[in-house]
């Protein structure tokens, strides 16, 4: 399938270039985000009746992992409200043309931290406390507020969206999985970028800001670090930026050789499997350990959690790739072949989320009418009883997701292996073993 340029349509292009539609969505999102923070603090402590839990961890999560990431890649980042207040402060403007004079400190992000290790760590911090985070409204509020203030603070110290690019716990995995999405922002003609004077897409111009994600669009080869903010479409003087519809997983044809991205793939794969066992399994002791964060059982849980992510999964993977002979370094083909775990991990999360979301979706209606759990009935749906939705299709849908994920992963492994001229079979067997374990946990 060839690429289809969506921005060749004047209506689509106009919608993306115009700042007003985007700002309208931003304002709604920011209002929702602030309301979620407030709801967690002043609303009922019962998670399943509080807007902050129901709309963040059921509604938003469902949209993110089942729709936004698989089909729109970093589409969520394009409308995420977290960087907005900081960015407005940083720019000293909301909509007006940029002032070239830098506000605040405007420092470059430290070179040693220009990777996603901090995002891996921030995700793990949330993941280890996820049982509390997913169920306790005020903890969700604290985390949402902390992310907002961290983004504001970093905007005042560093240039561009340092929080989104290097620290956001959600942005890390969205970036990883956005490589599988059938949508991309790319340049049309490389020669136009080479000869372009001033590179306004990166440095900004009177028509828009320099790339907030610190990316030079002319060098974009994958979706991972492009936040789809559309600034480069506004600033490019040569109309050389396009949003394309493309085949799924087009970025994975050229595998990454970065260890931070490889470990992100293991962290996400392992976390999906651990959550499937702990949250959806019938083992009460595991739930107790994961929830009671002030106990020895939680410390043991945390150690096992980290050992699975950083010891067992990458260790077994290393053993698998060692079965093959290659002319390149182990680090390089370890990272290249780990690319094949990206579609597998994404489909593991889809399968996990299907069960979690469909069985708890009915809380959304009740929380819509009574978002704080204070006895309101704004839309007449406050008394909607809990009822799992579509339970008969959960297992078949999960099976389809996991089978599809494994085939997709096997095809990616074959392509990655051919790039480094080694056999893909050990990696496919690794993915098969992980899929069988996930099937056992979910079905």
């Amino acid at each position, binding site marked *: 399938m060839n690429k289809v340029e969506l921005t060749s349509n004047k209506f689509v292009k106009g919608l993306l270039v115009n700042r007003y539609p985007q700002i309208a969505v931003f304002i709604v999102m920011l209002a929702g985000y602030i309301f979620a923070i407030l709801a967690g603090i002043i609303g009922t402590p019962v998670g399943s009746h509080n807007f902050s839990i129901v709309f963040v961890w059921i509604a938003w999560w469902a949209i993110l992992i089942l729709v936004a990431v698989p089909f729109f890649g970093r589409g969520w980042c394009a409308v995420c409200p977290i960087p907005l207040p900081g960015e407005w402060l940083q720019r000293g403007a909301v909509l007006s043309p940029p002032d070239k004079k830098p506000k605040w400190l405007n420092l470059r992000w430290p070179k040693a931290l220009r990777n996603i290790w901090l995002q891996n760590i921030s995700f793990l911090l949330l993941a280890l406390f996820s049982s509390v985070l997913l169920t306790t409204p005020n903890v969700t509020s604290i985390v949402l507020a902390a992310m907002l203030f961290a983004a504001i603070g970093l905007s005042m110290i560093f240039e561009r969206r340092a929080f989104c690019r290097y620290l956001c716990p959600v942005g890390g995995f969205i970036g990883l999985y956005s490589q599988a999405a059938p949508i991309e922002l790319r340049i049309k003609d490389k020669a136009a970028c080479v000869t372009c004077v001033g590179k306004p897409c990166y440095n900004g111009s009177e028509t828009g800001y320099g790339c907030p994600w610190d990316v030079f669009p002319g060098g974009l080869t994958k979706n991972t670090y492009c936040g789809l903010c559309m600034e480069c479409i506004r600033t490019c003087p040569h109309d050389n930026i396009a949003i394309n519809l493309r085949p799924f997983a087009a970025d994975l044809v050229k595998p990454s050789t970065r260890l931070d991205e490889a470990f992100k793939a293991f962290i996400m794969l392992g976390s999906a499997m651990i959550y499937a066992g702990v949250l959806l399994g019938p083992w*009460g002791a595991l739930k107790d350990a994961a929830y009671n964060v002030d106990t020895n059982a939680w410390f043991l849980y945390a150690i096992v959690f980290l050992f699975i992510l950083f010891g067992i999964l990458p260790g077994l993977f290393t053993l698998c790739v060692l079965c093959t002979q290659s002319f390149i370094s182990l680090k390089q083909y370890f990272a290249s072949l780990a690319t094949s775990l990206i579609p597998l991990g994404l489909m593991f999360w889809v399968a996990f989320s299907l069960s979690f979301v469909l*069985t708890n979706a009915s809380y959304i209606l009740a929380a819509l009418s009574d978002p704080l759990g204070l006895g309101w009935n704004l839309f007449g749906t406050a008394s909607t009883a809990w009822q799992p939705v579509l339970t008969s299709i959960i297992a078949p849908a999960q099976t389809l997701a996991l089978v599809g994920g494994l085939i997709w992963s096997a095809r990616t492994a074959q392509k990655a292996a051919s790039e480094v001229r080694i056999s893909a079979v050990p990696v*496919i067997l690794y993915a098969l073993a992980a899929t*069988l374990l996930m099937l056992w946990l979910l079905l």
Partner: protein
Amino acid sequence: MTKRTVWLLLGLVALVVAFAPSPLTPDTSTHDTHVFRIEASQYAYNPGEIAVNPGDTVTIQLVSTDVVHGLYIDGYDLSLEADPGQTVTLTFIADKPGSFRFRCNVTCGAMHPFMIGKLNVGANVTLYRAIGLVLLGVVGAMMFAKRNA
């Protein structure tokens, strides 16, 4: 064999694996009666997993040891609620084979949405079919790669 024939063949085998009657169906001429006493406490059932054969009569005695808990069985759409210290009983015929989650349907605390148990009625055919499809998928991917090499 042409590429198209191979795909057609794999597709047909996948359909058989997914939908053919299961050879694992147990003898349903005799039906047993099972009584399970399930203790519910934040946020687990004990036992967390119960197994019966299709057609068996199942009686669940739900006992709550701390706060009010419920038990809702996915697929069967049956539920019951137990106040602390009280025992409530539900009897039904396990006429749908498969593996079903049962979960608390009364908000009982923070981890309530994850208070889950498992009812197995006969063999977990869905899991076996899924394993078959997964293996078939890997074989298909390998064959596709070999042919393209």
